[in-house]
């Protein structure tokens, strides 16, 4: 029993230490963000690398998610002769939950791991040390532009994911299942709220998710052990921690933004 309590104590202690170190690292990143934005070319390159290069994955995933949502919803709604509500159902599911969460999880797998392994390998091959010896701070030059790029890319990718997913839902619902297209769009327009469903759900959630994933990815890369195994473990931690963080933050944000508790 004492052994178990001691193990739990160390796990909690490790978790709190990690959280503290991540917060300090975040403050450091935020302090350097304004100067990094002045060198917009470097940030732009990173947005291309982590954002634009994830576009195909996000679009294809969005299309299938929207199609599945429409198919499942149609078979439920048709029992109640309520297929006119298909557009609303698909749009609300995508905008409120699936869009931000699935995009964030895909981004963590595609770009988060790339950020961690890139920075980790730069440390392992002494490129970061070389930069420090040239009097260039690697946090400012390497880490901050990647953090900004991640935080900016996820909201943009989420919007694209949602748009494609709704089009996928339209294709299955209207073209394949024969739902009336006027009802599909008009019901969606009436029931989707700009503030609650777009601003709060898509924009705010995706900004928070993007910032969290990028922070975890660059933190794990920057502090990874400079060995092959160290980089590999850091990459794994990025996926696991990012996914858990996204799901936990999703619950917190939903509770805070929509239910005031």
């Amino acid at each position, binding site marked *: 029993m004492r052994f178990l309590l001691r193990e739990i104590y160390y796990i909690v202690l490790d978790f709190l230490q990690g959280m503290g170190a991540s917060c300090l690292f975040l403050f450091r990143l935020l302090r350097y963000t304004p100067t990094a934005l002045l060198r917009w070319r470097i940030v732009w390159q990173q947005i291309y690398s982590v954002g634009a290069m994830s576009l195909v994955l996000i679009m294809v995933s969005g299309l299938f998610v929207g199609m599945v949502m429409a198919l499942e919803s149609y078979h439920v709604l048709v029992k109640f002769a309520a297929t006119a509500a298909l557009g609303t159902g698909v749009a609300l599911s995508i905008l409120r939950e699936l869009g931000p969460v699935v995009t964030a999880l895909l981004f963590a797998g595609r770009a988060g791991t790339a950020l961690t392994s890139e920075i980790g390998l730069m440390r392992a*091959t*002494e*490129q970061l*040390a*070389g930069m*420090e*010896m*040239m*009097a*260039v*701070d690697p946090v400012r*030059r390497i880490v901050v532009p990647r953090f900004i790029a991640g935080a900016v890319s996820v909201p943009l990718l989420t919007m694209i994911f949602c748009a494609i997913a709704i089009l996928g839902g339209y294709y299955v619902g209207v073209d394949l299942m024969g739902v009336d297209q006027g009802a599909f769009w008009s019901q969606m327009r009436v029931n989707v709220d700009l503030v609650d469903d777009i601003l709060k759900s898509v924009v705010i959630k995706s900004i928070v998710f993007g910032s969290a994933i990028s922070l975890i990815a660059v933190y794990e890369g920057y502090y990874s052990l400079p060995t092959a195994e160290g980089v590999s473990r850091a990459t794994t931690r990025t996926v696991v921690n990012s996914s858990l963080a996204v799901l936990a933050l999703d619950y917190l944000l939903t509770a805070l933004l929509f239910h005031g508790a």
Partner: protein
Amino acid sequence: MAIHDLKPNDNVVEITGLKYRVGNKAIFDRLNISIPRGKITAIMGPSGTGKTTLLRVMTGQVLADRGRVLVEGKNIARLSTDELYGLRKQMGFLFQNGALFTDYTVYENVAFPLREHTKLPENLIRHVVLMKLQAVGLRGAANLMPAELSGGMARRVALARAIALDPKIIFYDEPFTGLDPISMGVIVRLIRVLNDSLGLTSIIVSHDVEEVSSVSDHSYLISDGKVVAYGTPEELEHNKSAWVRQFMKGLADGPVPFHYPAPDYAGQLLGEEQI
């Protein structure tokens, strides 16, 4: 003339009473070293004696547990990050593996410090980069990626990058390891030519006795965290100490053990001792 007889201002680096431990192992124990300005000073010693760590201490990458490290009269341990970076702009550091940026071409690698620290127009940066690459004989490789270079070429590119900002001090970490005879000869010659023509102070960490002796003005031999011997290559060559003779001549027998401390060999083979 002993190195410590030089006037304080003649020394670019002064280390006194340096103590540094990693875990329970003492890497340096009251180590004293002075690096004279304008000379090529070598720091030699068997593998694992902390030569590279010593370079990292001198450049502020690692902080000593105790002792004073003065570089250009400034105490490294007391510098702020900005002050340390200011000092590093006067330093060049050649890493053992080159530490080139793998996503940049040779040209971009050499241009990197110029773009970060100067506001030179692009055409002037181009001139400086080509001059530095010409100095190391790799102007024709400007568009190659680091993955396309041999080990010797990568180190020469790294050398061109290290001298891009015309530093006052240049640190070489094992510059001769793994080079073919031609590349080695080129690097040895480059170290001498750059030091003399640019008026640098060069500090070489290496265990390649022959090459170091051919290029250095003075050498320190360190072992067990202390300086074992100091002098010109000729003085070290004729040193009477058994330790120095064994190291300088690469003898198998002597006070320097070849084996890392280990339990009894026969006992371990018979399973009486654990690995």
